[in-house]
């Protein structure tokens, strides 16, 4: 049932699954190739969650953990990105306190000047989170945020997200549904508020 896809049309190189075969045998160079492919995505995600300063630290921790857990990677999967997002989310969870501090700081920063579309994360990372989106995200629970972001970024199904987060897939579906409802309501409310 397993396959050996050695060619990835998207990258004109071996798929992550093919690279991870040798990574699982201890090939650090192949792991570096996986790193090169996904560091931008993981960095954007983590930086937007915890801020750029802590973010890079967590990114390195994510890849270090990925190496340590490499035997758990499912080699039938073409892309390692959803798996890395899952690990990154675990790293973010461990740094919830840091995340909260950043949210507080960003909120203060936004209040000081900016308003809608404010760049709350700058300093070289280039990630922008609009004020309405940030406010909407703050209405979600931590787990709802995790499920929502993993679904959107990793293009993962609720079942896959559940596996990444160690929760039941029913719980993942419920959280996703709630998160989407809350987000839609908050964004619509915010837009109406701005328009008036």
């Amino acid at each position, binding site marked *: 049932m397993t396959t050996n896809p050695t060619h990835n049309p998207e990258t004109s190189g071996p798929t992550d699954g093919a690279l991870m075969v040798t990574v699982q045998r201890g090939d650090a160079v192949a792991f570096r190739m996986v790193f090169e492919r996904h560091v931008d995505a993981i960095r954007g995600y983590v*930086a937007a969650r915890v801020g750029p300063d802590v973010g890079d630290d967590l990114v390195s921790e994510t890849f270090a953990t990925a190496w340590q857990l490499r035997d758990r990677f499912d080699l039938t999967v073409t892309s390692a990105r959803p798996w890395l997002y899952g690990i990154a989310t675990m790293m973010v969870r461990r740094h919830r306190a840091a995340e909260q501090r950043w949210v507080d700081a960003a909120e203060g920063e936004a209040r000081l000047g900016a308003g809608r579309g404010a760049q709350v994360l700058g300093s070289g990372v280039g990630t922008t989170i609009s004020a309405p989106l940030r406010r909407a995200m703050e209405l979600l629970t931590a787990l709802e945020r995790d499920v929502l972001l993993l679904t959107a970024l990793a293009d993962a199904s609720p079942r896959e997200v559940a596996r990444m987060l160690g929760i039941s897939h029913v719980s993942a579906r419920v959280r996703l549904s709630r998160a989407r409802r809350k987000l839609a309501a908050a964004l619509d409310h915010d837009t109406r508020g701005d328009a008036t």
Partner: protein
Amino acid sequence: MSLMRRQATTNVIDQDDLLVEAFGPVSTDEARRDAIWSQAMVRIDGATGMPSVPGARSARRGWRGLRVAVVTAAACVVLTGLAAAAAPDLASRLLGLRGPELDRMEVFQEPVAQDEVPAWALRQLEQLTEDVPGVPKANLAGSMVGTKQVRLLLDGEMAGVRIGMWGTPTSTSRACYVWLSGRAGQPFPARGGGGTCIGFRDGWPLSESDSFDGPNWFVMGGAADGVVAVRLTLEDGTKADALMGNNAFAWIGRDHDPLPVAIEVERVDGTFVRRPHNLAAYADEMLGRRAQR
């Protein structure tokens, strides 16, 4: 304005677009990538995630503080010019270059011919060795470890494939290896191959690792002093000799040919040691090799 309109009719697709825009990939310059990678490698080594000699890490930890102090002192000595002649040997010992790996691999005591090292292989080795903690980067920049310690360990052909392997000692008990493979009789390609840092373990005289570069499987690595032959038992019961180099060996087989299930080492004193190395089962499990036949 477009953001406003999009938010006014928020649906799942719009939400995902917003989230990807805010939490999606960012551009990471090379220097930052290298910094993140190096930090990850330090964490890996700190968690014994990469192969190492049992017990070496705890010993290293205990000596780290002392080593830092001694290296600092040695640097002062070198800077004042008081020990110029003795500096290379002193520095080597302080950096741990005479650890277990070197004691057991004579090749790392031999003179180095730097022109034998392809640029790509050298770059890969430098990436690997830069990531090994315990060696100050300044020393690597001075090419004490990263280039002058690099040796050609093996250049041979098997199964229609040419393979080259280069190695360098590290500050720990491991050595780092990179290899390039190409068509037999042809120059090495400019890129490709693989590499790892690995040490001898449990008294076993090889530090082998496997690699797959479709359709070929490779079993290769370092061989301690005194190893005169490496023979692999294949899944059909036949035996195949590995290529031997300077403190290195390599075996190459095609995906659908019989793969190794055990490795046997012949020592210079005529004794043999053997251990399972079930690459065949691994290939079957991971690549569905048997199903493809």
